[in-house]
């Protein structure tokens, strides 16, 4: 390693230059951490540690995707795109089609989000804007506790409480008033796509509300006060100052919730009924990508079966990726529109 000629150094350490500027200048000049005269050792160590951490993330991501792709390859080669469009899941005859799993995953997650979004945002608004400070602190802590309950516990609750309740009270009601839609026709069972959506909704609400609460509390006090000073009521202040400032944060919270719903495994596996078929009714048992992997992995006897299950995982990764990219584009558009109008 070659040291720079010393006479260049004083220029960089000119006392009239702010230190931050100097460091930044040097960081830009040499992208890779190298021990240099004039750069404190701590700077070098910091660069090294953060750089290594960032690199680990990239390596991990590459490693996981590579393994998934390699392991899924036999199934990919055997079924091609038919894997995505076929509804035939028949391990005994080595026929594998993922469409029922994709359908179950997407429908249960979107339904859960549709229910959880207004609730989650509402709870967050109540916590950050309506409740007195002390109450909001307590309730906020409880919401975070809810988010920390293990999903298997939610699953148990779903089996013993939520599922039967839906079957005995909600499904008859839906059938009576909305039964003209095929969605709400069919047998009354406790394990169903509806139960899975409901349990997912319950699990997603604390997520959405915890993130939204942080988003709302990041709104500058000066904006709130500006609205109040104009004679805004609390709700008018929320509409004028809090919500416009929080749009991209809310979208982010919803996407996080959706991501959680898409990947949720064990709670869904416990209440959805695990039936790999698409039916028009929400009252019928169904299945999802994640729950199927968990349920069937131990029974997968043939190599192709294992490979097909791993391909389900690959599809799940792709869906999550798609959701995230869409969210980024959405947020980008929302923020750009705001500042160009």
């Amino acid at each position, binding site marked *: 390693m070659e040291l720079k000629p010393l006479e260049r150094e004083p220029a960089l350490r000119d006392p009239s230059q702010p230190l931050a500027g100097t460091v930044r200048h040097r960081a830009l000049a040499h992208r890779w951490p190298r021990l240099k005269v004039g750069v404190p050792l701590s700077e070098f160590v910091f660069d090294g540690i953060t750089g290594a951490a960032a690199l680990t993330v990239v390596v991990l991501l590459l490693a996981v995707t590579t393994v998934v792709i390699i392991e899924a390859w036999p199934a990919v080669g055997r079924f091609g795109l038919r894997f995505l469009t076929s509804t035939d899941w028949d391990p005994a005859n080595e026929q594998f089609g993922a469409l029922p799993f994709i359908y179950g995953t997407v429908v249960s997650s979107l339904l859960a989000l549709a229910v959880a979004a207004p609730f989650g945002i509402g709870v967050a608004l109540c916590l950050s804007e309506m409740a007195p*400070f002390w109450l909001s602190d307590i309730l906020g802590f409880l919401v975070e506790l809810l988010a920390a309950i293990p999903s298997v516990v939610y699953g148990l609750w779903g089996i013993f409480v939520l599922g039967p309740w839906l079957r005995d009270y909600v499904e008859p009601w839906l059938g009576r008033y909305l039964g003209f839609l095929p969605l709400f026709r069919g047998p009354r069972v406790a394990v169903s796509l509806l139960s899975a959506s409901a349990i997912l909704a319950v699990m997603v609400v604390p997520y959405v509300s915890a993130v939204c609460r942080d988003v709302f509390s990041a709104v*500058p*006090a*000066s*904006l*709130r*006060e*500006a*609205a*109040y*000073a*104009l*004679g*805004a*009521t609390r709700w*008018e202040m929320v509409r*004028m*100052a809090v919500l*416009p*400032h929080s749009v991209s944060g809310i979208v982010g919270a919803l996407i996080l919730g959706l991501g959680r719903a898409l990947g949720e495994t064990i709670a869904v596996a416990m209440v959805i009924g695990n039936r790999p078929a698409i039916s028009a009714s929400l009252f019928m048992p169904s299945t999802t990508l994640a729950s199927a992997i968990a349920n069937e992995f131990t029974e997968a006897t043939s190599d192709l079966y294992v490979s097909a299950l791993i391909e389900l995982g690959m599809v799940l990764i792709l869906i999550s990726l798609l959701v995230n990219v869409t969210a980024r584009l959405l947020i980008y558009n929302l923020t750009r529109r*705001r*500042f160009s*109008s």
Partner: protein
Amino acid sequence: MAKLSLVHLSAYFGRVKTLKDINLDIPEYNVTAVIGPSGCGKTTLVRCLNRMHEVVRDARVEGEVLLDGENIYAPGVDPVQIRRRVGMVFQKPTPFPTMSIEENVIAGLKLNGSVRNSAQRAEIVERCLRLAALWDEVKDNLGKPGTSLSGGQQQRLCIARALAVEPEVLLMDEPCSSLDPASTARIEELVLELKSQYTIVIVTHNMQQAARASDYTAFLLNGVLIEFGETKQIFTNPKRQETEDYITGRFG
């Protein structure tokens, strides 16, 4: 006649008593300046006059503030109604970032639903922006975001926004701290114009400004009202030694 009367007013942030037992009558249709060194409680004082103090966590007020003889801190009084009558311009400009210049000006009016049609809206926007000495600079860009303006322009936008709701009292917390001399002069003119219709309280660090623009002056020190009187008297013949030291620049 006193538009606003502060009666044994004390203000707290948590346990800290920031304003200590202030008694003060703010005369109607006059300009009252509040002066004092940084941190002495000027901002806190004006925020007590439209119930903005209580918006801060753990902040509370003791004593009374009478607006036209009625205590704004009496139980059952709606702070929203008080704030519509007592408008405010903050120390730091705070245009709503998601609103255009025009929308910012009529933001407060939209709340009480008094803008009926677009002609009336345009008329109000122009009048308020002219009053705040901003019209000529922005008249071709009313659709641009309020935050795209310079700091001084943003401050004048906030003044226009506060004027649009036509309050009875206008509280101005160092409205000129980010303005150039020309805009400062324009704001001072505006203050003099407005006082025939409004009661104005203006916080300022600028002694010349207080002397030029105000009729009465209150001098605060460490949360205590040291002296209040006609501006001329305060600046030429202060009764208290602290006042004299402050206005002659010996401390603060």
